[in-house]
């Protein structure tokens, strides 16, 4: 029994150590590009690409080995002359909208863009009604007062 428990401990404690690659990071995972302008482009893009291994972090934020490998992809592609738009398209062609923190209007994302407009419209209508009522009625006999008493 005790031996089984010890074995269980050993397995659960050792697991996190095993669950990561021992390989060194990709060359451009933690190394900036020489050209500051290109590096600025790359890091702006990395802020808006989502890490696939971690919840709610960009690849710029994450220390996951795969995020490092994705940063390497971004930097080497920028250095090779690709535009950030092209690189984002490359990533979304593989991982879909999930990978991008810069949502575009699509069949699944349109409510995101429509909702604020609909809310503004509703607010506008309510305001119009209210202001219209107030202007139309005499101050002492407004309907609001009537209901309150």
């Amino acid at each position, binding site marked *: 029994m005790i031996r089984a428990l010890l074995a269980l401990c050993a397995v659960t404690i050792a697991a996190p150590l095993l669950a*990561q690659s*021992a390989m060194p990071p990709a060359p451009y995972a933690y190394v900036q590009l020489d050209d500051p302008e290109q590096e600025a482009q790359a890091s702006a893009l990395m802020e808006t690409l989502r890490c*696939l*291994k971690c919840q709610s972090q960009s690849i710029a934020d994450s220390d996951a080995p795969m995020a490092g490998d*994705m940063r390497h992809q971004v930097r080497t592609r920028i250095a090779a002359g690709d535009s950030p738009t092209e690189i984002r398209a490359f990533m979304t*062609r*593989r*991982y879909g909208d999930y*990978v991008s923190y810069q949502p575009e209007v699509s069949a699944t994302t349109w409510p995101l863009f429509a909702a604020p407009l609909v809310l503004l419209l509703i607010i506008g209508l309510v305001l119009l009604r209210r202001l219209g009522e107030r202007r139309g009625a005499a101050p002492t006999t407004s309907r609001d007062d009537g209901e309150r008493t």
Partner: protein
Amino acid sequence: MSRLFYLLPLAAFLFFAGLAGYMLTQDKTDAVPSQMVEQPLPDFALKPAVDGIPGVSRADFVGGAPRLLNIWASWCLPCIAEAPHLERLKEEGVEIVGIAVRDEPEAVAQFLERHGNPYSRIGADEISELMIELGASGVPETYVIDAEGNIRYQHIGDIRAETVPMLLAKLEEVR
């Protein structure tokens, strides 16, 4: 009318609370499906991951019967769990091509010695380049590749006993 109007915020609250409650009852999957399914395999060539077993390039998937492309790593625990099931697929006559992600030759050799080798070839993907090309978000993942080198199906996570017949059916389907 106006009294009903004041109930609107409450209705909106109840709607969202209900929605949240409903979503809690739904199965949550963290899997990010690849958009590369039904696309041709990209061009690639990976050097051997270990001595004695050839590396992998796109040409290895063209001709003959459909194959499985298995993305794994010696440091990945679920890969140990799926090893016997890969062995079963191999016994069924399926060619399995391995991609070892972020792995070292010694570690790969040790893994194969301990858990068996179901692979005809193993390519070394040292900085996850092919993984990203394929739209894979983790290890292990398994792809069904038809004899023209097109990606036809993606299985995310480890292969279990019940996955084996499903993969065999998929392989037959794309033959």
